[in-house]
């Protein structure tokens, strides 16, 4: 907010500009929609689209995560990793393809409605309320819930014990790793059915990164599907059940984490040999 001339908010479609979604309505028609309960829990299939009226960033890109799994999206800079995740979360105009959650087509839903349907999203930047306390951050995460949130907050504190100690402190005063824990905790407060993390380890030290990965595995073990975008491809693929390597907005390689780590092509291009 430091620059008085910068615009307000991001320019992603439809968080505050539902009108931009108008061209979307017909896209999913005719596409075969799988019956509820079959196929991956959350999937974006054949997604093609870009920001606003700009060029396509994603080209027939398919990403999915199933129950109890960790899916990781890796790839070089500018490959459209974050864009793919935003597309699944509804922050992008899709010109082709569709997104399904638990077998239901959600392509036309706004991001807020996707949160209500059980999607938890942690953006890469500006993912906390800096001047509010840790506890208030968690409360705001649960804003759409009408019931008692104390039990959920307790679960978050068990997962991230440091947050319990810092509950009264302003989130903006915490270290980078602790902030990310607040951000993930905030997203967990809605009791989501799937958690989406956009580069959760960006800008934290290697030690903190390891700890964050441990926590993410812990979250996934509770049965919550986790989909994440990661810069640290090797470490991310090590914990991934499914890995997607994107190049220029297209699926370049897909497989289990182990397969991708063993694939000479992937090693050569993305893992430094």
């Amino acid at each position, binding site marked *: *907010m*430091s620059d*008085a*001339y*910068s*615009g*307000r*908010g*991001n320019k992603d479609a439809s*968080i*505050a*500009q539902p009108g931009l979604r108008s061209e979307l309505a017909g896209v999913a028609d005719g596409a075969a929609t799988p019956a509820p309960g079959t196929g991956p829990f959350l999937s974006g299939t054949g997604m093609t689209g870009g920001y606003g009226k700009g060029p396509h960033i994603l080209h027939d890109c398919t990403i999915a995560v199933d129950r109890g799994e960790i899916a990781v999206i890796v790839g070089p800079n500018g490959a459209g990793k974050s864009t793919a995740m935003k597309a699944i979360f509804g922050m992008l105009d899709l010109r082709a393809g569709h997104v399904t959650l638990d077998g239901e087509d959600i392509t036309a839903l706004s*991001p*807020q409605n996707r*949160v*209500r349907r059980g999607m938890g*999203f942690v*953006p890469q930047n*500006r*993912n*906390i*309320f*800096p*001047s*509010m306390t840790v506890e*208030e951050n968690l*409360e*705001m*995460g649960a*804003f*759409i819930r009408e019931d008692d949130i104390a039990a959920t907050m307790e679960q978050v504190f068990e997962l991230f014990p440091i947050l319990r100690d810092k509950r009264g402190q302003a989130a903006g005063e915490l270290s980078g790793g602790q902030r990310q824990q607040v951000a993930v905790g*905030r997203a967990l407060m809605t009791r989501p059915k799937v958690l989406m993390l956009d580069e959760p380890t960006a800008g934290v030290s290697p030690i903190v990164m390891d700890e964050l990965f441990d926590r993410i595995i812990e979250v996934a073990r509770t049965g919550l599907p986790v989909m994440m975008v990661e810069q640290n491809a090797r470490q991310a693929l090590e914990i991934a059940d499914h890995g997607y390597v994107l190049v220029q907005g297209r699926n370049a390689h897909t497989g289990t984490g182990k397969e991708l780590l063993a694939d000479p092509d992937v090693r050569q291009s993305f893992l430094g040999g």
Partner: protein
Amino acid sequence: MDFLNAIVALANFVLIPATAYGAQLALGALGVTLIYGILRFSNFAHGDTMAFGTTVTILFTWWFQSMGVGFGPLPTALLALPFGILGCALLLLGTDRVVFRFYRAQKAVPVILVIVSMGVMFVYNGLVRFIIGVDTQRFADGERFIISARDFKSATGLDEGLALKSTQAITLVVAAIAVALLFWFLTRTRTGKSMRAFSDNEDLALLSGINPEKVVTVTWLIVAALATIAGTLYGLDKSFKPFTYFQLLLPIFAAAIVGGLGSPVGAIAGGFVIAYSEVMITYAWKKVAGYLLPESLAPDGLAQLLSTDYKFAVSFAILVVVLLFKPTGLFKGKSA
């Protein structure tokens, strides 16, 4: 005895008036800072918003007075205050609907909203003058003094008198209640917290399911209340004149910026900093110095740093200094 006289003179001419004035500025600055923090622009129409709220309050005060309705020793204006707030709230919500909402939908940059608010300022300016005229209006009634100078002198035997006007005491009490309510609302209620969240990180607030239109509406309601209370208290304490309220914009913005735009605590601190500076720099210190210093050192002139005609220069100078050396203000607001 001289020392006591000096203290009494200082309290009578500097401390009490500056505290009351500071409270009025603080309430005004709170409104500016809330709009900046939540709606993200500097609202130049705030002075005239205060004038409009006060105008409605005055009209209701006159109506109550004509019906013989009074508030005992307290000014009738306090009874009329809720109606003034209501009128002001209707005006602000109407303005938001026909003007600001359009620019919000466009995601207009803050600098455009500032210019828009100047346009709104001119409209309010004309509206107020159209309704109540350009002249000075006095609407204070009830008991004038809590302690009058004469009573104080006869009670204490000091040469200096100490007067405490009832409007000054009312200003402090009402301001304290308003500020306490505001902070309770912002830190304890769900709606208040969602407003702070919206101010902190708009995108994340939207993702969390916070309804932006509700936040905006509640913000305007609170701003209407703060502006009307600030304007009415200032009018009771001094007098109501549309042009004076327009001029109040400078010290109010100075207060909000000194404290740190977007920070409610800062707005209050800033209000008092500006008020004390303004009063102390334009006060003729001859009398106090005469009591404290030996006769040989007593000043010949008035020992007044700046004529009261130039009091706005004080706010302006403080504003410039703060923007040069600490642009985020005392309480780390968003950069001005």
